C-alpha cells in the first residue's frame, strides 16, 4: 500500500506539479531562488532587524497575504528608483540600512516645537 501511495504521488508530481521557479517575484531582478534567498538573508533581514516571518507566510513564501510584504515591495521600488539617481550622480548605491539602521521602522528625529 505504501509503495502504491508513493508511486502515485511521484507520477502526479511529474504530471501536474508546477515548475520549481521563482513565483510572484515582481520587483527584484534575481533569476534564481538561491540569489533571492541570499539577498534576503544577507541584506533585507539584517538591515531591518527582522526574520523571514516578518513579511512571509512560512508555509508559502510567495503569498502576498502579509501587509509587511506589500510594503516591503514598494520600499524596494523606492530604493531602486533612488539608486538610479545615485548612479546618475556617480554616488554609492543605497540599501535599506540608510534609513532602517537595523530597525523595523526608521527612527525619526524628535519633533521640533
Amino acid at each position: 500500500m505504501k509503495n502504491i501511495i508513493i508511486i502515485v504521488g511521484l507520477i502526479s508530481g511529474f504530471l501536474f506539479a508546477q515548475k520549481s521557479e521563482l513565483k510572484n517575484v515582481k520587483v527584484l531582478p534575481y533569476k534564481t531562488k538561491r540569489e533571492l534567498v541570499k539577498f534576503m538573508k544577507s541584506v533585507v533581514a539584517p538591515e531591518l532587524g527582522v526574520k523571514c516571518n516578518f513579511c512571509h507566510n512560512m508555509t508559502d513564501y510567495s503569498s502576498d497575504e502579509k501587509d509587511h510584504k506589500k510594503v516591503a515591495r514598494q520600499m524596494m521600488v523606492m530604493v531602486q528608483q533612488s539608486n538610479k539617481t545615485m548612479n546618475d550622480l556617480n554616488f554609492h548605491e543605497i540599501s535599506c540600512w540608510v534609513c532602517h539602521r537595523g530597525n523595523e521602522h526608521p527612527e525619526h528625529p524628535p519633533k521640533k516645537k
Partner: protein
Amino acid sequence: MKIYIINRPLLFIFLCSSFLWAIPRYAMESGSSCILCHIDPSGGGLRSDYGIAYGLDDLAQKTPEKVSGYSGIILKHIQIGGDARIQSISKSEGDVPKDLAVFPMQANIQLKTEVGKVTVLAQLATLQSDLGFQFRINEFNGYLKVGLGKPSIGLKLPDHTVFTRGGNIKLVSGSHREGMPFRSTLKNVPLLEIGQYKGDTHYSLGLAKGYFFDKSELFYFRLEHFISKRSWNQMIGISYLKELSEAAGLQMFNVNGGISHGNISWMGEVTVADNLVLGRSIASYSELTWRIKRGWNMSGRIDFFDESIKHTEDAIRRTTFGLNYVPFPFVDIKFQIRSSYLSESKSSKGIEILSQLHFWF
C-alpha cells in the same frame, strides 16, 4: 586491537538508528522554526531553498564556485535530496583501544513537489526499507498534513542519550532502554497533523496510529516560541504526548529551550514519561556549543536517562566532547569522545571514541 566491521546484533542497533536528523540548534540560532530550513515542518530531511542557502553560505568553511548554484531541482518539477551517514565507534579499556565498529547509519532519499498550495513529500529510508510520505495543504500561515510519518515532540533528537545519534555500542545490562521511546526501530505510521505559525510562535498537534504499540492511537502537541533581540536568540518549547488506549497509558511531557549569543549557544531538554517502563522515567540533555569559526564547532554535552525514578540502579549519564567540521557544503565530519557512567555498577564504562561522516545534498 580487535576490529569487527559488520556484526549482526550491532547492525540491528545501528542501522535502524535514524529517527529524525534535524539539528535544532540551527533553528534556534536562526530564530525560526524548523520549516525555515526544511520542507517538513517537523524538521529533518529535505532542505528548503533557505536551508540549502544556509548550508552553502553559513555552515561550510569553503563553498566552491561549482556548487554555489545548487538548488536540488531536477526536471523543473521535482526537488530531490538525500542524507547518508557512516559512523565508527571505538571503545577503550584504560588507555588501550579495544573494539572498532564501522557501519552505515543512514541512507535516505527524499523527493518533493508542489501543486498549488499542496506540498507532496516522500522519503525512503533505504537501510530500514521504510517509506515516509506526506501530503500537506498550506493555508492560513499553517498546514494540514496527512500521510506516513512520525509524531513530532520536543527537540526531536533520536533520544536523550546519544551523541552522534547512534546509541550505545552495547545495551547496558539492567537498562535495556537508554532513552525515551523514540527509538529508531519504530517505523513511519499513519498520522494527521495541523500546525500554524503566529509570529515567532509555532504550534502543531496531531494524531498517529500504531507508532509505539499496534492499533494504539496517540495524541501529540508541540509549541515553540523564538525570541530574538539584537545578537541574542532564545527558544522555549513544550510538548506533550499521550497514548489514547488505556492499556498503554504512556504519556510524556517535555520542556526544551536554548539561548545563543555570538558564537556560543546552549540547548537543553527535559522529558518526563509515565508508564514507559514502570512508573516514571526522566531524561535530560544539555549541550554547549562554541562556533570557533565558519565550518568549525566545538561542543560539550551531558545526557542523563533514568528508566525508573523509583530505582536508583538503572540510570546512565554520558559526558561528551566533540568537534564538528564542515569543510565543504554537503559534507559534515564529527569527532567525539564520550564517557558513560552507570549508576548500577557505580562505574564508568570507559571512553568511547566516535566519528561520523555525513553527506547530504
